[in-house]
């Protein structure tokens, strides 16, 4: 691995306190460009909070976050997104009363200047529309373009959740439990979808389903009460006594 290449994502002693609760506690993380990293840990371990810190949805209490070598610790979330950082949400966070296509168009036009155009109908922008349709096809929603998102099945909403993140052509993708609430068949389809992602994209995935997490990522970070308690290859993490205790004991 080339050493001069900056890390895609680097966290230095990042902490987040909610009152007295240290939801994230001195987390160190280094993720190389193009890496697939799984983030696991029991309920309430602080995984989603960590994503909120990286994405900028919440300010850190202490610590430092770097994206491609750039300090983004105090940068608002929309500017981090403009640098290529995108996330999905554990609980689907979509635009419920808009159509699937409009949802996707919002994601597609976000990095462009078209988003400020006020004098022409969006429907006439065929290039944006083509890209939105490509994204919908990639996540298996091509035939649902005109449906209102509120009326989609839970599984379809999870697919769109990924679609919105992919539409902006991210460089770093944070996936928060993409299979949450999916049936085994839907989960398998989601795993195939994630397996097809462009290898250039750096992916951090929070996943409760171990099989999916370990199938996708060779490198695993384990969080427990806000701390990193194990970090290494999947076999090393599987063999780690503390991890075994948390997942098999208690």
């Amino acid at each position, binding site marked *: 691995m080339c050493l001069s290449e900056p890390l895609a994502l680097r966290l230095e002693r990042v902490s987040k306190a909610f009152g007295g609760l240290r939801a994230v506690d001195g987390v160190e993380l280094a993720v190389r460009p193009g890496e697939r990293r799984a983030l696991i840990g029991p309920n309430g371990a602080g995984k989603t909070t960590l994503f909120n810190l990286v*994405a*900028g*949805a919440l300010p850190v209490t202490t610590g430092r976050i770097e994206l491609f070598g750039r300090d983004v610790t105090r940068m*608002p*979330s*929309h*500017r981090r*997104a*403009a640098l290529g950082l*995108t*996330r999905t*949400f554990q609980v689907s*966070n*979509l*635009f*419920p*009363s*808009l159509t699937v296509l*409009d949802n996707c*168009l*919002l*994601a597609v*036009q*976000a*990095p462009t200047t*078209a*988003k*400020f*155009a*006020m*004098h*022409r*109908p*969006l*429907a006439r*922008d065929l290039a*944006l529309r083509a890209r939105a349709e490509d994204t919908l096809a990639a996540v298996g929603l091509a035939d649902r373009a005109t449906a209102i998102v509120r009326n989609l099945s839970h599984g379809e909403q999870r697919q769109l959740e990924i679609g*919105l993140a992919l539409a*902006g052509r991210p460089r770093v993708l944070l996936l928060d439990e993409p299979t949450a609430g999916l049936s085994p068949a839907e989960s398998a389809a989601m795993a195939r979808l994630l397996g097809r992602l462009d290898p250039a994209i750096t992916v951090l995935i929070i996943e409760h389903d171990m099989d999916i997490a370990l199938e996708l990522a060779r490198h695993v970070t384990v969080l427990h009460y806000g701390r990193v308690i194990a970090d290494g290859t999947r076999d090393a993490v599987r063999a780690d006594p503390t991890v075994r205790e948390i997942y098999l004991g208690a």
Partner: protein
Amino acid sequence: MNRAILLGIGALVAAAAVAPALPSYPLTLLTQVAIMAVLAMSLDILLGYTGLPSLGHAAYFGAAAYAVGILATERQAGFLTCLVAGVLLATVTAALFGLIAIRATGTYFLMITLALGMVVWGLAFRWVSLTKGDNGIAGVPRPELPLPWSLSAPLPFFYFALVATALAWAALGTLARSPFGLTLKGIRESETRMRALGYDVWLHKYLAFVISGAFAGFAGVLWAWYNGFVSPVDVQLVTSVETLLMVALGGPGTLAGPALGAAMIVFLKNFVSVYTKRWLLILGAVYIGVILWAPRGVLGALRSQR
């Protein structure tokens, strides 16, 4: 969507067709409806599209009306000067107030816009040397245009207001269907997702706020010319509440709906005032009725019927 546009065009054409046959009182009311429709549609950009409930919209409407009142009486300013100055003053006011209001959301946004509206009302009331205070500015002349008909007659002025309304509707409709318009709907649906996608939510809300204020100012200019009289009544809270109700009653996020709501409120107000002075009570009752039976307004209710 297209059905609402057809309905709107139908209403405009019908109004234009029956106008010459109408006695002067109904014609005056129709003129009021046309102007209030512009005000309601301007608020719809904030309330219906962006999800920001402003309770101070009379501020921009009134600021523009005062600009026209003062310039037309003291400086004998003509059509273009009044139009530009009125819209500009409303825009600048919205640009200043937006800096304060946009950080807040929900009820806080409502309260801040209300408070800012009260500031403008207070100025209109107290800055007597400029605004003539409670007495108001009387005798605001209508502009002279190079047309064969004088706008001081009710019928030509009605057509003038109707054309202005149609133009405002077309402009706001284009905005609503533009890429920028979609970002406003996105903000209404989920601000957190918009941020995650890379939108500067503050900026988009701010732009919507200023544009909305500019169009409210356009309505205020028309109102000063129509009424020939500008007073603190034009900037008071009741005017803001009525506007909010027009949008809620007609159907937020549809433009045509708030225009319909404007018609309902204007006619109701003038009808009711024959029998009682308790207009605010009636307004409150209408509001409760909307919440109970048509939370998405008349157009929204008609749509979900199908």
